[in-house]
């Protein structure tokens, strides 16, 4: 007899994580898929969102700078604003330069955020992380399945909102300019579009979604630590976007669920078949799988499962 409640609980846990990743992947898709901005520091932006919301909403603790006890909604909003601000700073610094400089700069940002999270103990709790992050409505729904389902509904609601907002943005003239810049920046400039401004806007909005995704993650788990935001997270999110199909918002969302399913399944298989002593090494193999998945997808199916629709027909 299958434990129905257990299964439902497992599936809803899986779905909450995948939904948080889908929100982040939407942000990455706006940056990379629509504008061609290569951000390799996604984990850093997610961390900023998660830490901002966590630090603002947690109850005050002795020896900690933060802990303002704000409501969760305000924390999530602040997460978006702060991540957007960091995105703006990074964008102003790096978006004028050669394409790959943005990659290197965002990579450096992620490393630096990791260092701060690990070492600025009075602010971030250092390696021990932030605990007691409030879970919205938990006082009312308890800790069991009803709460998980309610949080899933909240996360999906936020994802739908984000999807609708981004879809309407990229279908607007603004979105057309983004794609024009991605395809041929000189031509877009020649048409009088200040490409730097558009790229910066796209980068900031994308960063805000990453921050929101981080906050959704933090308030679900109730505990965050620097090791939740290692470069591996960036790779997973990139894998989601590449597998799903860059340049298509539905593809980005689909990719998040598919890759997270692939990742959890691989992890589960390793736990079942690899002896206890070898688990740490097996986890490394799991990451190798994601690396190979990205590489294989690029070689075999560069447009992803559900790639961008061609706007101009009759050309390839």
């Amino acid at each position, binding site marked *: 007899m299958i434990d129905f409640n257990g299964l439902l609980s497992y599936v809803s846990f899986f779905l909450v994580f995948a939904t948080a990743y889908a929100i982040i992947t939407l942000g990455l898709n706006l940056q990379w898929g629509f504008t*061609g901005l*290569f951000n*390799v520091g996604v984990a850093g932006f997610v961390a900023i969102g998660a830490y901002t919301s966590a630090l603002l909403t947690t109850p005050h603790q002795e020896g900690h700078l933060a802990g303002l006890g704000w409501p969760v909604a305000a924390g999530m909003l602040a997460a978006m604003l702060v991540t957007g601000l960091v995105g703006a700073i990074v964008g102003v*610094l*790096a978006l*004028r*330069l*050669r*394409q*790959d*400089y943005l*990659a*290197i*700069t965002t*990579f*450096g*940002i992620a*490393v*630096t955020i990791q*260092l701060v999270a*690990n*070492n600025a103990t009075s602010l971030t709790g250092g390696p021990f992380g932030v605990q007691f992050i409030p879970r919205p409505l938990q006082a009312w729904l308890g800790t069991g399945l009803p709460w998980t389902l309610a949080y899933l509904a909240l996360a999906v609601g936020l994802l739908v909102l984000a999807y609708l907002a981004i879809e309407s943005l990229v279908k607007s003239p603004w979105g057309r300019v983004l794609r024009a810049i991605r395809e041929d920046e000189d031509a877009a400039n020649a048409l009088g579009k200040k490409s730097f401004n558009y790229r910066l806007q796209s980068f900031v909005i994308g960063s805000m979604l990453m921050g929101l995704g981080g906050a959704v993650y933090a308030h679900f788990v109730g505990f965050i630590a620097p090791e939740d935001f290692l*470069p*591996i997270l960036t*790779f997973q999110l*990139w*894998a989601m976007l*590449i597998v799903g199909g860059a340049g298509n918002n539905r593809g980005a969302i689909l990719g998040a669920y598919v890759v997270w399913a692939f990742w959890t399944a691989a992890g589960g298989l390793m736990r079942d078949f690899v002896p206890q002593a070898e688990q*740490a*090494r*097996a986890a*490394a*193999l799991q*990451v*190798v799988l*994601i*690396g*190979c*998945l*990205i*590489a294989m997808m*690029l*070689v075999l199916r*560069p447009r992803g499962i559900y790639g961008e629709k061609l706007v101009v027909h009759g050309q390839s």
Partner: protein
Amino acid sequence: MLQILADGLIIGSVVALGAIGLSMTLSIVRFSNFSHGELLGWGAYLALVASTALNTTSGAWATPIGPFSFGWGLLVALVLACGLTALLALGLDAVLFKRLRKQGSITLVIASFGAALALRNLLLFWQGGIPRYYSENLQIAIAFLPRSTWGGLRATPDQLFVLVLALVTVTGLHLFLQRSTLGRAMRATALNPGLARVTGIDPERVLRATWLMGGVLAAIAGVFAGLTVQMRPTMGVDLLLPLFAAVILGGIGSIWGAVLGGFVVGMAESISITWVGAEYRSAAAFVVLIAILMVRPRGLFGEKY
């Protein structure tokens, strides 16, 4: 004060050697190879495996040479590691990068990202996560200047070995690029690939040479990092930011620029260890990087050899 400079030179020689390979890939293969750091890591560990194997065949391999902590075994292992790492770089190109070259540089960057991840974790899977050393022998640092003279200056023989061999390697590379036909072909391709092709230079041959040399330099840098600090499977990704900072500081494609950039980054790390604390060491490279991008985005020496 002098000690900070000396430590900076040692860190810098590792960064410089890695940065030259990265810079060559950037200017000749034309993409930011995020997996270059992993070549350093693999080089270091391949040398470790080779030297351990040699040491078990005969104790003579492990007997320290003069004042150094390592024996002939490590030097032979270094040569082997250079060859194997060069093959690894070539293999990676054949399996992955070659197939994606037509799709543009950013696709290559993403691919190198995936490759870095796979390589690093394969290393972790193979060697485990515990830091390793080539030799358990402890070295006493030689005092070159007493503490009374500007804070004194001390260095271990291994550190001096690293510094000298790094300078020899870079000089050799410089002569190769200036004097040999293949070196000239590489410089020509970096400057103008189209024109180089028209003049009869085989681009594939130049690319292969670039990967081979990048791999060799990475292996040397990796072994030096293992010799002066320690080996960890994550050493590649830890070194990546310093490498990029050095390349951008020196100017993409400039060998001596990469060397100078490496030493500046090494200095910055050394200073930050003293003034800010070792925990923020990696951020030093990032601060240098941001400063260059703001002030002089093309680096100190432009796009030329």
